[in-house]
């Protein structure tokens, strides 16, 4: 992968994640109301799909990151490289929670207990995702300044 392709996919990866998080806000809000609408199920599915796509694209560009960016980042700005590692760990947690939330919602969304459980999973996924995104922006901004 050329550096130009890497930076293109890196941006795509970030935009997909932001979109996924934005869509995830819908089921978090709508699950606070009684009942389960088709829109809630759909938005939860779309959010999980977008976050999965973002995660998959992150996995795809990880080897070029290690070859193109990481050595310089470690040499010139070690705290940024460490924050990047934290971001990768948090992204894995965010995705696991979102997928678990979709599973709970689709299988037990008709019961109030299931809806409450799905909402908690989505909420924590959203919070961990926000932290992941903030770290991503922090690392990208710092990396560009190098």
């Amino acid at each position: 992968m050329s550096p130009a392709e890497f930076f293109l996919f890196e941006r795509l990866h970030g935009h997909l994640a932001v979109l996924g998080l934005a869509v995830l806000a819908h089921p978090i809000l709508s699950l606070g109301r009684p009942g389960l609408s088709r829109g809630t199920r759909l938005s939860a599915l779309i959010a999980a799909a977008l976050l999965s796509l973002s995660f998959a694209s992150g996995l795809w560009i990880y080897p070029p990151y290690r070859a193109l960016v990481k050595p310089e980042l470690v040499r010139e700005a070690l705290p940024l490289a460490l924050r990047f590692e934290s971001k990768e760990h948090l992204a894995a947690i965010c995705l696991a929670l979102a997928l678990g939330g979709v599973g709970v919602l689709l299988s037990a969304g008709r019961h109030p207990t299931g809806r409450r459980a799905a909402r908690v999973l989505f909420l924590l996924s959203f919070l961990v995702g926000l932290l992941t995104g903030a770290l991503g922006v922090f690392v990208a901004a710092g990396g560009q300044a190098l």
Partner: protein
Amino acid sequence: MNLAAAALCFALICCLSYAGQRLWDARTEPAIGTVTLQATIPYYWRLAITALHGLGAAALAYWGLPESAAERLLRVTPWLVPLVVLPAAIAMLMVP
């Protein structure tokens, strides 16, 4: 309810497994920047093992958990999930 409990177990065990593996690796791995070439990518291995643990736990919950226990598990989710996820997330920030 068993399918929902399986999905919940998948999420929780994935979080625990990933954080546990990372913390375990951090005890013995060389400092960042000291290794210039690796034959494998530890992150990929960690994710693969995490997925295996998560799917295993989901299968156990789906086939092994009585319906009443699955329902009880879902009922305690509002405090159980933050109890597992928040320490794991904080640990991942403290141990990059």
